[in-house]
């Protein structure tokens, strides 16, 4: 494995817009909102940014293609700006672009931004759109919830879990996130829910009910990253650094070869193993203090806990019910409310996860502040279980 970038890049500042149904704001407004917070947090002027990345996935209802919308919205000083898109993992791709630019020495300071304006489609959920000329001809007519829902059928079969037990564990995933999100002023959904409410909600894609699905929101988030010495020059004594940043992309094997059983994410297992190695993490359950996972659907989070090595295979559902991932549990998960309560403005989500880990490590998470977390992990997933992009980032203190 490559040498990696552990501690090569520091996070100088971050910003995150209020997520929600931002009827009166366009995507540019959301970017500016996140960027101003980020810039102020970083304590630099925008003329110091050497390069920028913009993540946005569904350009039809957002800013359009290319890096230009970011350069225009923020009036960036004629620097390189690149648009990235990697399904719902786009936000982390933007971060990766900026981080790699700094790690390579090509940039001293780089900006990662992500935005999505999902509430301009005219209906709930993600937009229905073409998935490629040949794909449209042969792919099943699947939606996001429908593709992830299939995990449940395979998981139940593989681990002999009763449907009602799994449904209850899935409900607890969402109950826990709602309890967290209720405390977060930037979250879209800020209400607590009960297990019964989640279990009895209308069905979206069997067995996922309404509360097994994340919200649909508008939002933007940003990060400014730099070399650690620049961070120290700017007054950060012990800057927060990137410990690991790994991406694994499906190569068609899950979709086309009978070796995958449909109950887990091949990519998440690979990306997290690589990330732990890059970060020097030997026992994730003991060493990782908090997780922001890609909880697009409750079942996704549940099986991801196993894929990340936090729960043993087939026992994730019990750990969820035992409260392992609650705010007071061993490894709090979605302490900000997650996609469940923030919704999932695609380009922004990966950066929104990093924003929460950053705030928690900085001790600035307010009412939901955890007790001195040292290492946080984000897991940002795009696509469908049989065909996806999975990114895992680990963030901590330099040398820590």
């Amino acid at each position, binding site marked *: 494995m490559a040498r990696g970038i552990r501690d090569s890049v520091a996070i100088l500042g971050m910003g995150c817009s209020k997520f929600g149904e931002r009827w009166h704001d366009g995507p540019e407004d959301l970017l500016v909102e996140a960027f101003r917070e980020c810039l102020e947090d970083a304590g630099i002027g925008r003329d110091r940014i050497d390069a920028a990345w913009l993540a946005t996935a569904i350009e039809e209802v957002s800013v359009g293609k290319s890096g230009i919308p970011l350069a225009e919205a923020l009036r960036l000083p004629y620097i390189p700006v690149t648009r990235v898109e990697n399904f719902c993992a786009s936000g982390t791709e933007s971060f990766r672009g900026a981080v790699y630019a700094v790690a390579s020495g090509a940039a001293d300071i780089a900006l990662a931004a992500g935005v999505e304006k999902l509430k301009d489609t005219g*209906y709930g959920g993600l937009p*229905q759109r073409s998935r490629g*000329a040949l794909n449209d*001809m042969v792919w099943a007519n699947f939606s996001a919830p429908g593709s992830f829902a299939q995990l449940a*059928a395979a998981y139940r079969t593989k681990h002999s879990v009763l449907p009602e037990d799994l449904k209850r564990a899935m409900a607890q995933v969402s109950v826990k996130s709602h309890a967290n999100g209720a405390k977060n002023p930037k979250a879209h959904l800020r209400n607590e829910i009960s297990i019964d409410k989640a279990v009895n909600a209308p069905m979206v894609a069997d067995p996922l009910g309404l509360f097994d699905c994340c919200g649909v929101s508008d939002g933007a988030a940003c990060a400014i990253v730099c070399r650690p010495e620049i961070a120290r020059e700017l007054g950060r004594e012990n800057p927060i650094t990137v410990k690991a940043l790994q991406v694994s992309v499906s190569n068609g094997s899950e*979709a086309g*070869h009978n070796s995958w059983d*449909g109950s887990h994410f091949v990519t998440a297992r690979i990306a997290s193993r690589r990330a732990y190695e890059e970060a020097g993490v030997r026992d994730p359950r003991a060493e990782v203090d908090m997780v922001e996972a890609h909880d697009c659907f409750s079942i996704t989070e549940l099986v991801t806990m196993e894929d990340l090595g936090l729960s043993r295979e087939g026992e994730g559902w019990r750990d969820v019910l035992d409260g392992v991932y609650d705010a007071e549990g061993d490894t709090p998960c979605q302490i900000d409310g997650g996609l469940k309560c923030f919704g999932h403005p695609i380009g922004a989500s990966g950066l929104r996860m990093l924003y929460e880990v950053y705030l928690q490590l900085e001790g600035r998470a307010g009412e939901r502040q955890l007790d001195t977390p040292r290492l946080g992990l984000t897991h940002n997933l795009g696509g469908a279980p049989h065909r996806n992009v999975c990114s895992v980032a680990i963030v901590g203190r330099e040398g820590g």
Partner: protein
Amino acid sequence: MTSLLAWGGYVPRLRLNRGKAVEANSWFSPALRALGRGERAMCNWDEDTLTLAVEAGRDCLGPERDDVAAVHLASTTAPFADRQNAALLANALGLDERVGTMDIGASQRAGTSGLINAFASARAGSGPVLFVAAEDRLARAGGAAELRNGAGAVALLVGDGAGVAELVGFEQSAVDFVDHFRSQGQAFDYGWEERWVRDAGYLDIVPRTLDALLARCAVEPGAIDHFVMPCTLRGVLPKVAARVGLPEASVRDPLDAVMGEAGAAHAPLLLAHALESAGPGELVLAAGFGQGCDALLLRTTERIAEGRRGRGIGGWLARRREETNYGKFLAFNGLVEQDTGMRAEAERPTLLSTLYRNRDLVTALVGGKCRICGTAQLPRSAVCVNPNCGEFHTQDPYPFAERAASVLTWTADRLTYTPDPPAHYGIVQFEEGGRLMADFTDVDPGDVEVGMRMRMVFRIKEHDAKRNLKSYFWKAAPA
């Protein structure tokens, strides 16, 4: 000797309860109450004449495809006015491209004329002809035709060799008797008074043709074992039989109580149905009516029991699910302007050059099999999908359509747009290797479970309303 070698059929699974349709419409037409008994076959939203034809062809041929020299498709409701439906049928059946194809239409007699022609072709040395007749006629909501019509298909393989039935003779007449018509570009038929159709049409034209045939073949009318003719007008069949002198017991049930009348396909479909219960050495007389009359006389051979290779008409008739929702029937047939929601607006035009390049996958469900590691895979690609192989350019074409599969994962999705929610889909895994995340069809909520055995079926994938182009692909249905 040219003879009938085999037959197969298909009747869609859904059967509309006629009483429910009458209940919805008799406020306007009280006379419909007389037609409220039984059920009619109706297409699922993703079935049409072409998909029915493909199923009938598969039912007739079985997994063997080498022996077909020509495919003729008879229908008045084939989806394309100018894009040969028979060629698409032949490709969907995975036949070699060196096959003669032809569409036959424009009359309810297309099914019988086409069958006579298939015998003539084969006799003239064309090689085995797969003759398929399929129909799904559209009628205006609330009329008698809506209740009388059905949907179905039949396939008959005609060629040289020891067959299951021989054509003793045939007779045809051309009489421009317009009981109904449908001009180019029209969706619906326009018809004339039933009493006139009965008396001046069926009861005059048909007996003349039958008399001539029996005379030509020197067969006594009393020797006929089975007489089949589609007719939904009450009393016509026994009267025709009486006029010609056919035994009363030879008149076969036209199946209108269980499936309705499948238009131009119905005469050959009834013929196949009769053969399914015929013994060796029996005489079967089939007639088709429409701008004249066709009549065929067949004699079964001692091999008759081998003629049905698949489920046959009887088997498909027995596989049924009652549909009691008349509103669904209207929606499936585009007879109501339905609020399908904004998700239905998604534009996914078929790129014709992409379709052509991938036609073996899209139309025939042909994937690949790696010569190095033996992995069967969908789609066929330049690099083997097996994680332990990954060789370049090692895959031979490998057809999946007839291979057994089972459900690995599934869901029932109420978010995505489908004409018949919830959309069932999931990964199906083929027993001999390969998998596909496929749409499921012909399933109801509660039907699907992991491990369920499935068979692949050729269905409508999507209808591009703006360009009025249906796209087709393979879906998984309960085996």
